[in-house]
């Protein structure tokens, strides 16, 4: 409380400053970034919605209208990494409100300049690695009926997400424009590459362990000396070579089709059709 009073004192001295409460309120609002996502300007309204506590604090009258307008421009990035961009924008708005020579196009330029690279880092880390890895962990428990599965997924993913968003805003606000020079270093590249390795490794394991293709076509019936009967199927031969070979080949086939811009929904339906046909012809089980 005393801190807030202090900052308000500063404000009366003529300098406008965002309070801790403003930043926290921006963090809360940032959790609703994609609420009114639309195909024209995507996260634009959501970004403005996140910036409103800062705009309210810093501007009045015409300046406020201009500020609202410049944050309704096209915006789209990975939603968790939008937080540092909100922080940087807030820092710039604060300077501008105190008379620094920052024009509208500079703020827009910084936003546009950050959203591409941050999406490039955030998508593989969060959508490509963390969610599938934690999701697979939770799902593998859940399939056995274990309630821990959903809880693990919900808790772990959200701790990582909220920490990213909370510290993201703080970091962006404190660092301001110097965030850009951080982006140029190789820390982010290391993080992205490390995440990709973890993601690919786990995907490889999932392809093998959690995909089921079984070809029960019988190749031979053998009876050994003790009278014990063994049935050799296509699948048992494949498994003795390399378990999970068919899923791996199918994965690469699907990946190459996706690269050719085949709609994933068609692939999903196609695979179900193959499943029904294969079951009917008794070559899949």
């Amino acid at each position, binding site marked *: 409380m005393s801190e807030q009073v202090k900052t308000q004192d500063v404000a009366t001295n003529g300098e406008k400053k965002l309070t801790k409460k403003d930043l926290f309120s921006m963090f809360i609002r940032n959790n609703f970034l994609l609420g009114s996502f*639309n195909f024209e300007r995507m996260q634009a309204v959501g970004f403005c*919605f996140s910036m409103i506590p800062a705009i309210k604090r810093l501007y009045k009258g015409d300046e406020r209208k201009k500020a*609202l307008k410049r944050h309704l421009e096209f915006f789209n990035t990975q939603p968790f990494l939008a937080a540092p961009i909100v922080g940087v924008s807030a820092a710039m708005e604060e300077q501008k409100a105190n008379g620094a020579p920052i024009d509208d196009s500079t703020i827009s330029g910084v936003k546009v300049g950050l959203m591409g690279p941050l999406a490039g880092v955030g998508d593989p880390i969060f959508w490509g690695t963390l969610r599938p890895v934690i999701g697979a962990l*939770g799902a593998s428990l859940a399939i056995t009926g274990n309630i821990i599965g959903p809880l693990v997924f919900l808790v772990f993913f959200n701790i990582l997400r909220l920490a990213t968003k909370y510290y993201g805003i703080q970091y962006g606000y404190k660092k301001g424009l110097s965030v850009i020079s951080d982006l*140029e270093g190789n820390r982010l590249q290391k*993080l992205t590459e490390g995440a990709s390795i973890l*993601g690919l490794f786990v995907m490889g394991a*999932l392809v093998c362990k959690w995909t089921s293709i079984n070809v029960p076509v019988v190749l031979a019936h053998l009876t050994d000396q003790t009278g014990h009967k063994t049935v050799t199927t296509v699948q048992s031969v494949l498994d003795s070579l390399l378990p999970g070979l068919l899923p791996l080949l199918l994965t690469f086939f699907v990946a190459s089709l996706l690269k050719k811009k085949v709609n994933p929904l068609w692939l999903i339906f196609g695979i*179900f059709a193959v499943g029904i046909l294969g079951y009917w012809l008794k070559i899949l089980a």
Partner: protein
Amino acid sequence: MSLIQIILVCLIAAIAGMASVLDEGQLHRPLIVCTLIGLVLGDLKTGVILGGTLEMMALGWMNIGAAMAPDTALASVISTLLVITADQSIGKGIAVAVAVAAAGQVLTIFVRTLTIGLQHRADKYAEEGNIRGIDIMHIIGLSLQALRVLIPTLIVALISVTTVQSLLNSIPEVITKGLQVGGGMVVVVGYAMVINMMAVKYLMPFLFLGFVIAAFTNFNLVALGILGLVAAIIYIQLNPKYHVSAGQNRAAATNGGTVSGNDLDDDLDD
């Protein structure tokens, strides 16, 4: 279903609808939605199992840029609802979920087009300096996404169980068993999406490493995850490309160039 159950199911549907556009807390993922619906309908175990099954299938379904994933929210709500109330197999649940996910994708694209109107209203409010107006536009957008899942759910919940049952029971066995076979394979679409997103040729060995280790051991996913993390750390520690830049030209630019090993630990803890 009792009235209270219908209300709670609708509430979950609304939350899942909002969560699916926000993509923040993951309350729209099958693992969570199916569990919640199971809880409300008094069959937690079926909910959890169906959730796990569908989550595996949808692992790589993601919204990137303007590309929309099939709708997991509506699919999870409706499939769990039908499996539990009409006493159907997990296999039929998968069949329902896939059909609904496709339909739901069309619905979400429709709503995301509709919200363009809200964007233009928000522009007008900005001209007037009306902050409340912008807030309201944003919240209306979010509410439309809640309705997108709530309305179809309510319709399905109100159809009599016997009608649904006879409808689902009329599906021949070859279809449902075949769909279950397909369900085991269809997970690769998600894996392929993730792989496509991250695979650069020089990192592909890690995919094969994970594959072979999983093929010839009984390690669970925690163990495999730790192995993957270790592989990533070692790769980055040993990679000469990071040493050149950390030691020389970047030294001045980044905090005076701390020891790259420490830097890396920080990065991976983040």
